[in-house]
């Protein structure tokens, strides 16, 4: 299980809430009031929200609607107390008359209160759940994420864990292993975990910012059900921002639609044309353009909900609101489902997988020009694995992906994985789900010119083609802007434009409609459909039922099965069955091995049970004590004695010599290098063996070289093995509780470390996207720097979101915190330190007796 020094209940079996205090079932709610509130983000010319007056009464469940860019997320962040600070309070003037700049460079006007208390002083009374499930997991272990809020509110340990159990119970995750990693949770589980994290703070007001936009249909059902149950029990006040209101409509009792007013008293509700966000010229203040029950608002014919990006709930939907099979100009007369008769790309007995293990085999599919194929299937079923393999970005495990002669010409190789990056870019393009994985240039126009330039098109022609594409995608006004500064929908359009610029015959899009509102959704769907007229074979990876309907796509579903032969029995319950429009043909089913719903095996904190039982901070100190004193003398006796003692002690606590070498192999390569440098250029003395240029090998340098090599091993082995396997969370708890380092920095650092594995995945995605865009042929050094830049930008984006998630849980103030995990120290920890110190002491004393002691090599 886990190491001994951090104690907390490992399973949430105890749902006891006798004391009432820690129960999430207790009814609690509050009034949320915006008083002439406004906020302008740093580096923006206009306020995002201004002059907003809105009161949300206790227990109300409000759906907040408005055009993209109207400031809905800003309103929720403000209500959660994450924007601005308290500086205005001291000014002594009524707050709404002053604008206050905060340390983020933003400007606040007016105020937001919860039961008449300024939100900045109401920590814990407001819970916020954000759109991106991955961004809200702060720590590696599941339970630690839920207990983080209570810790920040200084809730005593026992009660904190009871709250965790109650919160997990409320979101339907009772009994889950608390120390399992969040890495293997599905999007729906992650989002329920985020909800549990908010609930454990026992908020009076729950704010939900598009909590289901990034989830697959199954995840949406899970989260909506969890919120429904929670609201039933707590009667909390709730504010929801969501485009697909249908799923939520039963729990909503008030709908508020926002618009804006300009200087000349014009009211605006919608964006213009293809603008992604509402136009703010002459913006004066934010207004409420409709406010009432769902019935009243959704039947208000003055508001065009489709233009607002809202999917009107089924019961209020007019026939023209339904998503129909769409048609675009110059559309070819053959159906999208079949395309033209000839084949452009096919798989033959293909086996796919990431680490050489096939998750699906014997896949044989043909792709045709002008055809649209939808790859569907549950989360983690392997849709991305298949699409990356088709795109020549992932090696097939067995079988083959074969390009038609026409696609490959003039190349003789027909396997896309064998093509160079440039050859690939002009034939098959891949659009990644996260646009920031794909950007490689500093301006929008360069981004669309990159493909053509890389595939040998001359500059002027590339520019002309690029501008044409930007016009077609309504991005021409942004040609000279930095691609990272575009809005979400614009970024998505740009990545599609950039992929098309190199004129591929096959275009693969990974979840192109994920997280988009209805308006952007429509634009993207039309763009995709329009590509048929170019004879491109289009493959979309998607969960989106309406996307399949609108495009009239052929459906290929990956069906998880226990035994591949049984898959025919499962047909009825497959996603494809739900996805298919009544008039559509059969879906092609591809059996894949079932996703592993495994119990996490927690890695021990060391291969030695003794070492694993030592407090991590003591292990760290022990590593220093065992290694650093050896620096005092550079001689072969002390180094050899220390090395011998280390092997004996490590073997006594359960390491085999082979294991010691395996765990520390890099120093066995490094030590001879340093020894060689010393041999050639070290301090001279005694007979000279050989001299040439700066090289001067002498008795003394040879002796020192031997000592250096041995000592690097003697220092390195304990320094590595004593700390290898320490769990970062346990170490952080030790830093906080034993060394009393400030929690802000300790847990901020710990949260950053969780991103290590996330950033590793980012790096892999960046490598693949660069190959797909024709940048992959550059040598390692030339491609390293741009890719490192992209990684750093991603890491800063991820860390600013992380900061929001941490603050939403009440982290960051100077108020006292409690600690839900205990870092304990025992007598054995002190014994450990003594043993660690004894080894170098014995070694140095031996050198003294042997007469070889040589202070720092002098």
């Amino acid at each position, binding site marked *: 299980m886990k190491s001994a020094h951090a104690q907390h209940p490992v399973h949430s079996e105890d749902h006891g809430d006798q004391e009432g205090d820690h129960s999430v079932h207790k009814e609690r709610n509050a009034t949320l009031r915006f008083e002439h509130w406004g906020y302008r983000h*740093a*580096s*923006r010319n206009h306020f995002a929200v201004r002059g907003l007056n809105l009161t949300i009464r206790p227990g109300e469940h409000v759906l907040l609607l408005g055009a993209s860019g109207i400031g809905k997320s800003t309103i929720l962040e403000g209500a959660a107390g994450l924007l601005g600070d308290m*500086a205005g309070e001291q*000014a002594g003037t009524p707050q709404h*008359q002053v*604008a*206050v700049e*905060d*340390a983020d*460079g933003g400007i606040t006007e007016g105020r937001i209160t919860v039961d008449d208390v300024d939100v900045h002083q109401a920590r814990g009374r407001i819970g916020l759940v954000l759109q991106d499930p991955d961004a809200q997991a702060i720590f590696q272990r599941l339970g630690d994420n839920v207990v983080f809020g209570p810790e920040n509110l200084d809730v005593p340990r026992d009660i904190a864990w009871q709250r965790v159990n109650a919160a997990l119970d409320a979101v339907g995750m009772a009994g889950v292993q608390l120390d399992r990693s969040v890495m293997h949770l599905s999007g729906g589980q992650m989002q329920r975990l985020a909800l549990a994290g908010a609930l454990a703070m026992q908020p009076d007001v729950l704010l939900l910012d598009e909590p289901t936009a990034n989830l697959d249909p199954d995840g949406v059902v899970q989260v909506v059900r969890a919120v429904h149950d929670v609201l039933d029990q707590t009667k909390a006040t709730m504010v929801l921002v969501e485009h697909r209101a249908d799923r939520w409509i039963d729990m909503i009792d008030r709908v508020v639609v926002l618009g804006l007013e300009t200087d000349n008293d014009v009211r605006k509700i919608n964006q213009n044309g293809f603008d992604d966000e509402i136009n703010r010229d002459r913006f004066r203040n934010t207004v409420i353009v409709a406010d009432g029950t769902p019935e009243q608002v959704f039947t208000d014919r003055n508001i065009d909900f489709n233009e607002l990006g809202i999917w009107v709930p089924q019961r209020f939907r007019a026939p023209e609101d339904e998503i129909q099979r769409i048609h675009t100009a110059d559309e070819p007369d053959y159906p999208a489902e079949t395309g033209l008769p000839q084949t452009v790309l096919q798989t033959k007995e293909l086996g796919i997988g990431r680490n050489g293990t096939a998750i699906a085999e014997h896949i044989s599919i043909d792709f045709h020009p002008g055809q649209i194929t939808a790859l569907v299937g549950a989360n983690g079923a392997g849709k991305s694995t298949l699409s990356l393999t088709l795109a020549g970005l992932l090696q097939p495990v067995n079988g083959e992906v074969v390009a038609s002669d026409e696609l490959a010409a003039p190349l003789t190789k027909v396997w896309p994985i064998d093509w160079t990056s440039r050859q690939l870019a002009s034939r098959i393009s891949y659009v990644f789900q996260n646009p920031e994985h794909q950007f490689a240039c500093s301006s929008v126009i360069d981004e669309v010119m990159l493909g053509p330039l890389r595939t040998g098109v001359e500059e002027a022609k590339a520019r002309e083609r690029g501008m044409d594409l930007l016009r077609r995608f309504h991005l021409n006004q942004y040609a000279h*802007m930095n691609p*990272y*500064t575009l809005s979400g929908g614009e970024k998505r359009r740009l990545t599609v434009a950039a992929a098309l610029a190199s004129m591929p015959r096959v275009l693969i899009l990974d979840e192109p409609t994920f997280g988009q509102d209805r308006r952007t959704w429509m634009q993207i769907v039309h763009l995709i459909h329009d590509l048929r007229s170019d004879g491109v074979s289009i493959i979309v990876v998607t969960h989106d039922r309406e996307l399949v309907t609108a495009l009239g796509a052929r459906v290929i579903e990956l069906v998880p099965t226990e035994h591949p032969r049984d898959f025919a029995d499962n047909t009825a319950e497959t996603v494809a069955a739900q996805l298919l429009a009544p008039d559509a043909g059969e879906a092609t089913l591809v059996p894949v091995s079932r996703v592993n719903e495994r119990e996490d095996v927690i890695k021990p904190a060391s291969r030695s049970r003794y070492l694993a039982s030592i407090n991590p901070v003591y292990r*760290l100190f022990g*590593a220093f004590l065992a*290694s*650093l004193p050896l*620096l005092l003398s550079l001689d072969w006796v002390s180094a050899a004695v220390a090395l011998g003692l280390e092997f004996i002690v490590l073997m006594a606590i359960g390491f085999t010599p082979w294991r010691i070498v395996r*765990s520390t192999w*890099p*120093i066995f390569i*490094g030590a001879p290098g*340093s020894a060689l*440098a*010393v041999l050639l*250029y*070290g*301090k001279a003395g005694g007979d000279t063996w050989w001299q040439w240029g*700066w*090289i001067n090998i002498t008795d003394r340098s040879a002796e020192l070289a031997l*000592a*250096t090599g041995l000592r*690097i091993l003697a220092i390195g082995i304990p*320094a590595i093995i*004593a700390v*290898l396997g*320490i769990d*970062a969370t346990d*170490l952080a708890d030790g830093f906080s509780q034993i060394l009393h380092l400030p929690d*802000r*920095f300790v847990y*901020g*650092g710990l949260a*950053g*470390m969780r991103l290590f594995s996330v*950033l*590793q995945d980012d*790096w892999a995605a960046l490598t693949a996207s660069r190959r797909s865009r024709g940048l992959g042929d550059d040598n390692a050094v030339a491609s*390293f720097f741009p890719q490192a*830049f992209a*990684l*750093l*930008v991603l*890491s*800063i984006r991820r*860390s*600013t979101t*992380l*900061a929001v998630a941490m603050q939403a849980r009440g982290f960051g103030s100077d108020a006292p915190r409690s600690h839900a995990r205990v870092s304990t120290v025992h007598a054995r920890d002190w014994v450990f330190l003594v043993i660690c110190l004894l080894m170098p002491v014995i070694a140095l004393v031996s050198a003294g007796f042997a007469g070889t002691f040589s202070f720092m090599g002098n």
Partner: protein
Amino acid sequence: MSASIVEAKPILKWRVVDIAVASVIGVASSLIYWFVSFISTVPWSLLESVVPGFAGIINGLWLFAGPLAAIIVRKPGAALYAEIVAGVLEALIGNMWGGVETFLMALVQGLFAEIAFMIFAYKKWNLGVTVLSGALSGLGCWGYSFFTHLQAIDLTGSYGIVYLITTVISGALIAGLAMWYLYIGIAKTGALDQFASGRQVKRVKR
């Protein structure tokens, strides 16, 4: 409507976002250091065989986390904090530089990088100070090597001098100069809008 704006005073107290960004710069850097150690083995030996000690010229690739975090976050201790996060992470995953030793190395390099900004009382954030920070970090790196594994080599001998000069130059160029332009590049993406450092870089507003 608003007669006046109460402006924020530049404060040296760390916000949560400062901590998060400095720590993640450390984490991303340790990932990059890791890749560098793979692609640099061959060049290292080549450079050593050209002029002994010349391989110091690539040392800057392991020094950039401190100066980069400092110029982005602009809080006292940012360089040190980012290096320590990177060092702890590397120590825990076990690597080329020997477990807990990485922590010590990071401490020394971070502290030296920090000195440059400290000298100017955390008021000057420009190219010059950043280059100085990178160079000092290089000095720390060189000193650490000679204090530990290269004790047997004369500090003032030709190897020691060449190694000193190349490491300091490398620190100044890679961990200093290049990081300044990297920061400008990142600021232009809009990722640093919440930071004074990001708002200082002019770009097209919308």
